[in-house]
């Protein structure tokens, strides 16, 4: 329907009628985001499924947990689909009105309002149609480590850590430093683990994983040369916020983990009162080792170590699954690849470039203070959606 309208409009443009100029701009193909028919087909399939479930409910069947989840998802897809279709219908109607010279001006105003709404709806629907990340509703852990560049890299790690803390504060997300090792001979961090305890924060921050590169004149530089250093960021999903150590331990099979506790030799007991609270947990099947000695309480150290261990295992499993899928698709690097540098922070030029989505911003200060980090994250999000929808179409 709308395609025909577009065709007509192109025809009108070719007739050099100047007063049509603005309308043509509005309905320029670039600004109008329409979903491909195959995706709409898919959405309609979901609607049929929804009606089937609806029938079940009206017959008095009680849905299982999984089914209930599916039902909510289908329902929300359906709502978006209806809105989208309504917009498309209005769009068609308005375009018909455009032919009438007396109503043309009003229709033009309406169209101007409608197009952004339509775009939003179509994006919304698209996002809902795409498969969700398995950890999308989880809170997350961010691990930061300096890469090449010595002390400058450690200082940059500190800067990044502050950026994420500020970002969390800006959104009002609770956040805490799980463990932090400061550089003893100077400034900066040797390693840092942040915990962002907001469900869904993993979905936003997962794009941060990778190598961040900084180009600037370090504070430690005496001759004014620009250095390039890097810092690595790993984002892990927090599987659950179980504080009970016993419960955490029970989730592993016996013999799967080994807990080592650092103990001084000697008599022990009442003879000494030194605090030895360091804990090391080894997950034997994957060989992941977590060491924690930040707290005076061994109990807390253990709990923290378990949280990190579970997050790392979950991430590893997810990565293995993704790798398998990618192999099946025989497709090259995607956004979750973390071996490459993902972003450059160039201080002399006041520039941040994200190499994955090609976004360049000239405002380092506000990004580093967490204020405008969302701009980059949003850009990554829309790129991810684009990639995924492309993949979805190919698999059709």
């Amino acid at each position, binding site marked *: 329907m709308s395609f025909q309208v577009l065709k007509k409009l192109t025809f009108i443009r070719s007739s050099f009628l100047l007063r049509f100029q603005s309308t043509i701009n509005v309905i320029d193909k670039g600004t109008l985001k329409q979903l491909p028919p195959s995706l709409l087909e898919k959405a309609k399939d979901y609607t049929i499924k929804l009606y089937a479930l609806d029938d079940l409910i009206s017959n008095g069947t009680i849905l299982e947990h999984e089914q209930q989840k599916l039902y909510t998802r289908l329902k929300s897809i359906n709502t978006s689909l209806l809105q989208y279709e309504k917009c498309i219908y209005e769009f068609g109607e308005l375009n018909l009105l455009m032919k009438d010279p007396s109503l043309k001006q009003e229709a033009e105003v309406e169209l101007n309002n409608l197009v952004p709404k339509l775009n939003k709806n179509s994006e919304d629907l698209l996002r809902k149609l795409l498969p969700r990340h398995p950890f999308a509703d989880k809170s997350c852990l961010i691990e930061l480590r300096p890469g090449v560049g010595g002390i400058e890299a450690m200082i940059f790690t500190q800067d990044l850590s502050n950026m994420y803390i500020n970002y969390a504060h800006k959104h009002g997300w609770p956040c805490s430093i799980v463990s932090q090792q400061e550089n*003893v*001979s100077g400034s900066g961090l040797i390693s840092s683990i942040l915990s962002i305890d907001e469900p869904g924060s993993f979905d936003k921050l997962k794009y941060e994983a990778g190598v961040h590169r900084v180009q600037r004149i370090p504070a430690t530089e005496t001759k004014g040369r620009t250095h390039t250093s890097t810092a690595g960021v790993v984002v892990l999903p927090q599987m659950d916020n179980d504080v009970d150590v*016993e419960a955490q331990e029970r989730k592993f099979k016996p013999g799967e983990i080994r807990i080592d*506790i650092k*103990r001084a*030799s000697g*008599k*022990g*007991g*009442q*003879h*000494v*009162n*030194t*605090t*030895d*609270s360091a804990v090391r947990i080894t997950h034997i099947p994957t060989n992941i080792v977590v060491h924690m*000695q*930040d*707290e*005076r*309480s*061994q*109990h*807390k150290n253990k709990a923290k170590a378990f949280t990190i261990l579970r997050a790392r295992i979950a991430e590893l499993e997810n990565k293995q699954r993704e790798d398998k899928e990618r192999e099946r698709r025989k497709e090259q690097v995607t956004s979750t690849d973390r071996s490459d540098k993902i972003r450059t922070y160039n201080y002399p030029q006041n520039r941040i470039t994200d190499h994955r989505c090609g976004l360049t911003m000239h405002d380092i200060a506000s990004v580093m203070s967490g204020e405008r980090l969302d701009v980059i994250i949003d850009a990554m999000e829309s790129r991810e959606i684009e990639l995924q929808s492309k993949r979805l179409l190919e698999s059709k």
Partner: protein
Amino acid sequence: MPRISWKAAFEAARLHPCLPLLLRACRTVEQAQVELRWLLKETPRSVRQACVLRSRHVPLQYVIGTQPFGCLDIVCRRNVLIPRWETEEWTTELIAGINGSVLSSVHGGIKIYDLCSGTGCVPLLMKSQLQCDAHFTAIDVSRHAVRLIRLNLNRLFSKGGSPADFRIMQRDILHEYPPIMPDGRIDIVTCNPPYIRRQDFVTDVQKSVKLYEPKLALIGDLEFYQNLLDHWLPRTDSFVYEIGNMGQFDFISKTVRQDPNLSQIWNVGLKFDSNNSPRCVYGFKSENTRLDYRKIFQNFGNIMHSCK
């Protein structure tokens, strides 16, 4: 103990001006740094003051004022023994054993006596972690200890007034006459008695313990274990006593084995801590008991004397 080298002291001073002070108590720069971090985070006084105290070997727990014990923070004061990780370890395991086998519907709740209670850490942790109903009695001879147990109890469980299921008594279990007579049978007696022998005190004990912790809670040998055999065994179904050396375990196990009556009804076991030192002697009856002790102590240690 090796001397601290000048080099190490200088290195420490470069990192933090207070670090050399901590070095005297911690001996290695790494350990000193860890302690400094805790002090910066938790000390109620100025960091410098705290480090000066530490350089005089005042225990970290007295400087900061608390010691973590399981999931609790126990307040520590001078004149009362600081809870040790070994005690924490066996208490946690005992709690896991009880939670794994005792149903919450034991009539009237289980009755637990803790002797030589000190800060009260053992019954307090049990109170916070046990899933079944339980009544606790904490006994200590020292008025400082009794005051501290009350303080800890109120600090941890003060919601809705003082809890009714926790009794605190200042009694001398060794010398008092008439002795303490519990009303009815006790289910579990726990005790961390002073177990460092007088002749070992000078040679084997860490300086900080020797200088600042109460000798009343440290020096002792067999008297509390004798008291267990004489007074508590007829009144309880099970016991867990911390020990400092094998002599104390042998004393209990030999006496039980050689006694024709006791050897018929008591099982005695030995528990090692995760540093592989003998740490607990425990025992339980296997007949006419309310609880399934064999299951409670299943993973606790090794049974060395079985009654049948």
